[in-house]
């Protein structure tokens, strides 16, 4: 059985005043995500990707349909803390998810909620801070850190709960390129250690690092394949309302000029390789 199983998920936000016209954020989504995989979820604003993310750990309960985590139904209240301790979440705004003023106290917040023994919490907090490279900042005030550092603290807070899966909801959207690169490195590292990773992102370069790319459009799964397959198909990318990464855009234009350029060209290296061979 897959780790996460979504069956005919539908979710409607309650909007006062427009009850008759319900436009659900998610219409009908069925997915399964295997343990240990690295899945990216893309889509334009309002495509339902964030709603999907919040449905996975029971922050949002399906209007209809079912979400199972490790066989547990998220709609069942008695499962909810079990599910959330297994599926941690990192949000977009680093400022608004840090609870405590001091770095290590914030990282300890999750494990404290789980009622873990103090000595064990200490161990987990130190491990988590080391993993995100923030151990030497453990006694600092959260407000003294940069955006990227705050986001690393938020990730450490999730890691300290020792979850089996982490859902990242656009974790790099508010960071500069440098901070973004560091966060992605940490995410890849965590995935290689066996944590099931679900990354919601706007950035093509980040989506390309996943094993599997799910593209959402108007509350439905628009495409579900490897990033390579998705970006090989220019029409598919445009249909999702997404922009082609510059290399792919270039490839498509070269193709329009009658050059037989293979779809395996997806990044700078493969492009340079092709151009050198073509000459």
């Amino acid at each position, binding site marked *: 059985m897959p780790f996460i199983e979504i069956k005919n998920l539908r979710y409607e936000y309650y909007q006062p005043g427009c009850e008759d016209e319900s436009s659900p954020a998610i219409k009908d989504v069925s997915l399964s995500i295997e343990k240990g995989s690295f899945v990216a979820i893309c889509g334009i604003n309002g495509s339902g990707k964030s709603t999907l993310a919040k449905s996975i750990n029971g922050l949002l309960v399906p209007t209809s349909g079912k979400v199972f985590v490790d066989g547990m139904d998220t709609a069942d209240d008695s499962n909810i*803390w079990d599910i959330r301790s297994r599926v941690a979440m990192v*949000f977009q705004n680093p400022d*608004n998810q840090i*609870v405590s003023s001091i770095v290590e106290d914030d990282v300890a917040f999750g494990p404290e909620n789980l*009622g873990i023994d103090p000595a064990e919490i200490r161990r987990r907090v130190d491990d988590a801070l080391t993993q995100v490279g923030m151990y030497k900042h453990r006694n600092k005030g*959260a407000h003294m850190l940069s955006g990227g550092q705050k986001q690393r603290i938020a990730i450490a807070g999730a890691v300290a709960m020792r979850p089996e899966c982490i859902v990242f909801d656009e974790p790099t959207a508010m960071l500069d390129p440098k901070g973004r690169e560091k966060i992605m490195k940490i995410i890849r590292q965590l995935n290689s250690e066996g944590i099931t990773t679900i990354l919601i992102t706007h950035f093509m370069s980040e989506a390309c690092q996943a094993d599997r790319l799910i593209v959402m459009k108007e509350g439905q799964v628009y495409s579900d394949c490897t990033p390579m397959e998705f970006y090989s198909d220019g029409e598919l990318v445009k249909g999702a309302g997404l922009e082609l990464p510059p290399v792919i855009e270039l490839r498509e234009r070269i193709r329009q000029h009658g050059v037989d350029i293979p779809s395996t060209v997806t990044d700078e290296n493969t492009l340079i390789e092709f151009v050198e061979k073509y000459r």
Partner: protein
Amino acid sequence: MIRDITLGQYFPAGSIIHSLDARTKILGTLLFVIELFVVDSFFGFAVLATFLAAIIAASKVPVKFIFRGLTPVFAIILFTFVINLFMSPGRVLWHWWFLTITVEGVRRAFFMAVRLVLLIIGSSMLTLCTKPIQLTDGLEKLLKPFKAIGVPSHEIALMMTIALRFIPTLMEEADKIIKAQQARGADFESGNIFRRGKALIPILIPLFVSSFRIAQELALAMEARCYNGGGGRTRMNEIHFARRDALAGVLMAASLGAAIAIRIL
């Protein structure tokens, strides 16, 4: 100026004062405040100021850092000083038009100013030397006995943690809003006090709205991290009374005794 407020900020220095139990420090601060109102002479203040100076020296917090925290409240101190200076009846020292300074006024003005300064420095020592989480843990434990009569000790402590955590965030937010309004030609620096007060409304309303948005996001993040109320929670750093706390307690009791003695004698 908005960044200068040290009130409610922790200064990591690792001194003996820092390592005291938070409960000791909370009670100590409370005692110090009481003592400030018990003594009624400049001699008493001198004794208390020496006591406070000793604590500051032991805490290893730079004096400059402490005094920087005074600048934002300087206006309040000045206001109390002026009011007391001109409004006290007694032996006339100086008189011009409607302004009268009396001997009692001068004495009282200095008296209140010194009391206020000591009060602010004394209470900011608590937050400078105590991690916010220990402060709230201490408060939670101190309030626990009152849980029986319905005091929500855990909730109060958590609210304080979050309030302290979000002071800098909300200040940044306010800074952003002020700059956005200034960029559109808002004027906060001219006109009389009423006009200036009115000019604050376009800052306060967006700040209020965004604090609700922040609260909602934070609540979601806390839920995602399995926050489920105070029941069944553990703490990474359990706080414990140690021998140094007993020693501090003796010192505190002695200072209270001294304050009462000065008052009576």
